[in-house]
């Protein structure tokens, strides 16, 4: 039995489900930003992790909610290719393997090659008989492993959330609310709620009641707009996102997230002529011939930026400015913007190939057994050309590397309230105050008028000094009089 055969069995009763999924971003990997109108999704948006899907399909599409997306000519209209089990398996045994364009194993296979370890295919019949609501394992199989491995991409999503402590995630801990992803990321006709391209900066609607739109992917959907006992804290929510105080650090579950990925150094070989791989003291790859240099972070304090709901996401085909660091998804907002709040972000540092003549990012063909793929031959000349040819995009043949930044909304791993960020972590003159990057507001405890402070200090010192001198003269003159 194959995956598509299971799907056909599902569709024989759930006759609308296939077409519903086929409208969702889980299937299309394409969406139009409601704020900028730009066509985005994994098919178009640039990132500073793996790069592009095109020409690397069977690897990347192992996380597609479908089967058989092997190249750019994939037919998105075949509903039997929807993968029901990836989301609805409750046995935990269904696995889409990394290299087969979304298919699970159908025959035993030696993995990794030459290891002698035979991996058995999952029992699709048994899995099909044990389907149910999506749990953390289903969503996590892809979303915890974005960027090619556990914790790599998001910083606030990794396998530590499968069984988190209350301290790590108050919503998902078994001694906390014990919620699943879909309790907040509510689905309506197989359409997920919540978006990275247009995350809700502020939700004035508040509580999501049964009569409402069943979109609970904001804190306010369950907690309302005045969740604190103290009015002063509720007022903060006008300018500060809930996450800013309630997620003091990300990557808190003991699994490091990637903070830097420098593609420009990839391709080195060791003394033995073999591709070089170096691990750091924690066992993380710090250098990979396939991917370049990496840096990691655990328990990382987020960066803070104003965000008003508009993300300016760069697409691979956009013309870029290579005179400075390229921000791949600049978030808009300022203190004056009524829709903006201060949000926490993981800022991913990258250095990645681009076309130095046409000023565009490039499609890099990394995966495949052919002569041009980077992970086979470690030759950017060939791999970029092959990627751009496959994508049908103009390429000058000249490439360089550009430093990039990417903002990842930190919104998961919500800590219990007693672990929330304390007032003085922002309201401080300390050079490491949390909001030191936010300079367009007057922040009590941090900001002051230097002239007023100097004049005021002189005034106080003068009044104390006058008293001291006056008193001293009184004592001296009295002694003289008594001495007479």
């Amino acid at each position, binding site marked *: 039995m194959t995956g598509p055969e299971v799907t056909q069995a599902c569709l024989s009763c759930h006759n609308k489900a296939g077409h519903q999924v086929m409208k969702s971003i889980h299937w299309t990997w394409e969406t139009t930003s409601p704020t900028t109108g730009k066509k985005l999704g994994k098919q178009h948006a640039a990132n500073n992790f793996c790069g592009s899907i095109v020409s690397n399909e069977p690897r990347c599409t192992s996380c597609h909610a479908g089967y058989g997306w092997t190249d750019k000519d994939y037919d998105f209209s075949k509903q039997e290719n929807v993968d029901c089990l990836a989301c609805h398996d409750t046995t935990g045994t269904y696995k889409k393997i990394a290299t087969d364009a979304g298919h699970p194993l159908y025959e035993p296979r030696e993995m990794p090659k030459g290891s002698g370890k035979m991996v058995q295919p999952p029992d699709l019949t048994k899995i099909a008989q044990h389907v149910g609501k999506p749990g953390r394992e289903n969503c996590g199989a892809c979303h915890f492993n974005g960027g090619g491995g556990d914790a790599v991409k998001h910083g606030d999503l990794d396998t530590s959330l499968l069984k988190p402590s209350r301290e790590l995630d108050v919503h998902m801990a078994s001694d906390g609310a014990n919620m699943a992803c879909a309790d907040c990321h509510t689905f309506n006709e197989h359409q997920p709620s919540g978006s990275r391209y247009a995350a809700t900066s502020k939700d004035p609607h508040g509580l999501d009641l049964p009569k409402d739109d069943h979109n609970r992917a904001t804190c306010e959907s369950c907690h309302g707009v005045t969740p604190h006992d103290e009015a002063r804290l509720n007022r903060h929510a006008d300018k500060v996102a809930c996450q800013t105080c309630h997620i003091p650090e990300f990557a808190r579950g003991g699994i490091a997230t990637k903070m830097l990925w420098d593609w420009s150094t990839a391709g080195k070989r060791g003394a033995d002529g073999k591709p070089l791989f170096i691990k750091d003291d924690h066992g993380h790859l710090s250098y990979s011939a396939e991917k370049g240099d990496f840096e990691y972070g655990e328990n990382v304090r987020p960066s803070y930026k104003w965000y008003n709901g508009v993300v300016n996401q760069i697409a691979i085909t956009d013309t870029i400015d290579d005179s400075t660091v390229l921000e791949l998804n600049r978030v808009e907002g300022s203190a004056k913007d009524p829709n903006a709040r201060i949000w926490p972000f993981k800022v991913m540092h990258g250095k990645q190939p681009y076309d130095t003549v046409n000023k565009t990012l490039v499609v890099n063909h990394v995966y495949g057994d052919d002569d041009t793929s980077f992970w086979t031959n470690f030759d950017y000349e060939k791999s970029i050309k092959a990627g751009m040819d496959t994508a049908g995009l103009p390429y000058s043949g000249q490439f360089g590397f550009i430093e990039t930044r990417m903002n990842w909304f930190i919104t998961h791993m919500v800590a219990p309230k007693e672990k929330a960020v304390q*007032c003085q972590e922002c309201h401080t003159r300390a050079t490491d105050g949390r909001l030191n990057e936010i300079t367009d507001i*007057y922040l009590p405890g941090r900001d002051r008028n230097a002239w007023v402070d100097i004049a*005021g200090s002189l005034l106080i010192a003068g*009044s104390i000094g006058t008293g001291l001198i006056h008193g001293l003269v*009184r004592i001296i*003159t009295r002694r003289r*009089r008594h001495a007479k």
Partner: protein
Amino acid sequence: MNAQRIYIYKRYERFWHWSQAALIITMMITGFEVHGSYELLGFGRAVNIHTLAAWTLLTLWAFTIFWQFTTGEWRQYLPSLKNVVAMVSYYTIGIFRDVPHPFRKTPGQKHNPLQRLAYLALLAFISPLIWISGLLYLFYGDWGVLGLNQYLSLEGVAVAHTVGAFMMTAFFFIHVYLTTTGHTIFAHIKAMISGWEEVDDHR
């Protein structure tokens, strides 16, 4: 030197003075922490205590204003320029030469002319500056509803409040120093505790 004991500070007045003193000292300590001058209680606690002390002092003032008018004591704060020069000359010269104090306290005239001017400046200038800026600061979150957003900036309000705080603190130190200028160092303070002032019977 003959001394005469007269009852100058009534019971409510003494209660008002000392509770106000405690509240103002509390607000100076917590206020400058909120300002970022040092870390003591933690920003959040400092804000809460500062706010609580402010409301308490406002309540105290409500009672005190009532007391001032029902007892007629408010007249103690009416300024007069008469004898101001004598007072200045006493504090700058006379006090070092054992010249008798030019002003004699009576229950009807508790404050010397310089004191009257200082308290009037406090009431007419520093107090309004601190209270208006402080209340605006406190209700920052409601500026939108009150329609004040277009007229005010948090920075302006905070800086005005800070200016008031510096002046108040300077006043505090001078005030405390001047309590030592009675016929003994603690004479004035004792009087403010017991209500009885020992007054020189020189003239």
